[in-house]
């Protein structure tokens, strides 16, 4: 009996520590994945730019790079993947497949996680420049608007003639838990396009 309770105490400590390590690990792993994937994606993107067709960054990947997003003022240089489901956003910002891409004259919608790739959105200010490159060419955008919206009653209209770029992430930026309804939307207007 005495031995039993002592074991219990030691075990409780062990369980607490291991659970603690597990969650810290899980949290760190999310960040590690987000950073590491970008390296692999850069290679796939370089290949796509040289020979044209989409390349998968790793053999079992379901998605491929479609664009490269740069914000020089904030040292951001990221590869954007096709699709914006949860399994894409773990690795990179995701491009909504119904939206446009540079050179198509159609609203472009890119989403990213607020705690990894798109954490920088909170530092953006109206008037700053964003670059987006794809196979068609390089487009430059100037930020025109920063908004917080409620995704439960708002949908994004893809303007079939629009030249806007929308960067979207979850809001508030310091939120702890995923799944909230609010979104932070950065709207930028195209200011130039080079083939």
């Amino acid at each position, binding site marked *: 009996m005495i031995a039993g309770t002592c074991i219990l105490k030691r075990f409780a400590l062990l369980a607490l520590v291991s659970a603690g390590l597990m969650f810290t690990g899980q949290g760190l792993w999310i960040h590690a994945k987000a950073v590491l994937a970008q390296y692999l994606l850069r290679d796939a993107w370089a290949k796509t730019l040289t020979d044209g067709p989409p390349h998968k960054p790793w053999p079992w990947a379901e998605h491929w790079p479609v664009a490269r997003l740069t914000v020089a003022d904030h040292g951001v240089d990221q590869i954007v993947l096709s699709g914006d489901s949860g399994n894409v956003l773990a690795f990179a910002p995701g491009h909504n497949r*119904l939206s446009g891409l540079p050179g198509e004259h159609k609203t472009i919608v890119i989403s990213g996680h607020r705690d990894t790739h798109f954490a920088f959105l909170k530092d953006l200010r109206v008037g700053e420049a964003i670059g987006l490159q794809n196979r068609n060419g390089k487009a430059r955008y100037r930020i025109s608007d920063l908004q917080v919206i409620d995704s439960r009653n708002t949908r994004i*209209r893809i303007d079939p003639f629009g030249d806007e770029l929308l960067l979207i992430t*979850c809001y508030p930026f310091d939120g702890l838990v995923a799944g909230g309804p609010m979104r932070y939307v950065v709207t930028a207007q195209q200011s130039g396009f080079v083939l």
Partner: protein
Amino acid sequence: MKSPQQRFFQHRLRAIAAIILLAMPALSPADVSPAEMSLAGSLAERSLADTHALEIDEESLAGSMKSLADTHALEIDDRSLSDTRSLEIDEMSPADTHLLEINEVSRGTLLVKTPQAGQYQLAPAQETSVTIEVTGPIARATVTQHFKNPCDAWIEAIYAFPLPEQAAVDHMRLQVGERSVEGQIKEKMQARKIHIQAKQKGQHSALIEQHRPNLFTTSVANIPPHGEVSVEIEYQQRLQWHDHRFSLRFPMAITPRYQPRFSAQVNENLTVPGGWSILPGEIPNVVPMPQTTEGANLNPVRLQIKLNPGFPVAAIESPYHSIRTVRSDNNTATITLAASPVPADRDFVLQWSAKPEKEPRAAFFTEQTEAGRYGLLMMMPPQSPDTPRIPRETIFIIDTSGSMGGASIRQAKAALIAAIESLHPSNRFNIIEFNSRTNVLYPRPQPASTANRQFAVDYVSRLNAGGGTEMMPALQAAFSMPAGNDGFLRQILFITDGAVGNEEPLLRLIHQNLGQRRLFTVAIGSAPNGYFMREAAQFGRGSFTNIGNLSEVSRKMQALFGKLEKPALTDLHIKLPGQADVLPDPLPDLYQGEPVIAAMKFDTGVQPAEITGRMGDTQWNSSLSLRSPTSTSGLGVYWAREKIRHWMRKKASGQNAGQIRKEVIGLALAHHLVSRYTSLVAVDTTPARPPEEAARSTALPANLPAGWKPATAHSGSDTGVQVSMAQSATSSRADLLFGALLILLAILIRAIGTPVPTMRCGS
């Protein structure tokens, strides 16, 4: 519904409990019973499963909100939120202001913008007149509505109309005082130029708008004080045949008024009129008007329906309105509201059925325009419940890729198991499972004996989602199964979310290899690739079933099994004399309870058309004289829409893209249709308000609530698609924090020495 925080902590606590319970036996094996072991196991499993469920839930929440229950719950949530917001406005605005959100629109409404984002005031409707012409399965509606600006200022408003499913507005005309705005079909590049010009004039289009699917909206800018607005729209819709009758619905229900917090009515009792979410046959949820105000109740509606269903009508019923029916002959009738005009307070529904002994077998309609002669043929399958059971060979393909993870794979497995269990022992079947790799259960299809079915069900229940989506080899495997002429009906049932990037090679594969097979697609999950699934079914000459959530599996699959078991007529062909173009090409199979509808353009009438088909292994022939006494409208438009669809499909079978574009633009411009290459743009055909007027109107008029802004912007019509936002946060911070807290707690316990357990140790 649980909050994200609750779900997060529940999931983490369950994981801790599982760790503790699993670690227990290692320390003192004797203390732990097998029951506890399995509890630990299931807890661990559930916490894993929960992670998936959590992701899916969030996606579907942020996503398309397809499930009705969710949408309603959310709308009610939104209302309780907006109540508090609008209450403040109410205090400072005139007492009779009704505020609502655009998602609440349940009939043609003119919404005046208020300073509160997302909140609108209703402009009183003066009069509404509606004419609907029903020709067989096609209804063409012309809606004219008059509104009045209730304010002493220039305003900007939005006209919104909840369209029936699969209906599209093809004509639109706005008259604002002297100004008229017309919806015109333009080639995309030209439409773009018009749009850019409008932008340069300082008019900009709103990018983010609040909408629900199939809500037609168009902006009406610069309405003069107390000025009148008239809106005319035309739309065409194909009616659905259900339970041996056609049903037509026209939205007239009054939008629920915002309920102040102190109102006698309790918010929970407020039913939400979901517009078109109410299924045919259900009583619409009509919210009683608490207080009548001028304009809101005086919305007289004149309704006239010209019914030409193409068969002798037994009964014409309107469940919610009293109607007056004038029958001109056996086959046609004109319906008006008995008390005309009536105040519009609930949706108008009209149902008509055929005389039982004269259940329609086929009906034919024609339209003569300058462009040519068009026809519409509607055919009912022969009703023969005792058709001999045709032996079937079904190949099931199930997608087990990573994108199917969580709720999707559970739905897919449930659907597949239901399908296997429905098989008759005389049938043969096989299962193909694919992710990055393709696995085939049997080398060739096996009889559906009890033992084989049990084996297959076991196999399916063990499937897990993971890996990539390599669809091509799976389809190739299905098509490589032998397809000899042994009297078996060959069916492929394809269960997937359709998450593929490049659809065209897949569609081409189906097109080239189909042969006598039929491909049925079953879409799974909250956001399947509907385009691919629909097109695959079309190329596969089968049907498309969409399963949005787990509770729908059994109902939707039963309906599909009905089709699979009893195809009434296959290999349908219609042969017309002279030059004729019959669409869709090829014609789909006829199933019990569903009519086949064919559109045609032809040059000679009167002579009989030959219709041939196959029922099981017997040949079926029928000849039909193409005679229709009167010309009916809308058939040319219907044919053109089918023809555009036909051309778009040719793209997948490798036709020259430039040629397709040319053909589609020609058809779309001639028939005033929205297509991939043309858009409906709102073109102001009169000069806009002079600039000095605009400047004057920026002064706030006296009787407007504080913060009101007069209109300056003008936006285009609803030519764009709308997308919902991705779920864009992880719980990494919460994980880190939670993990750190646990470790800290462990250190604390160790450092302090935790008095209570120490005492126990010592005692």
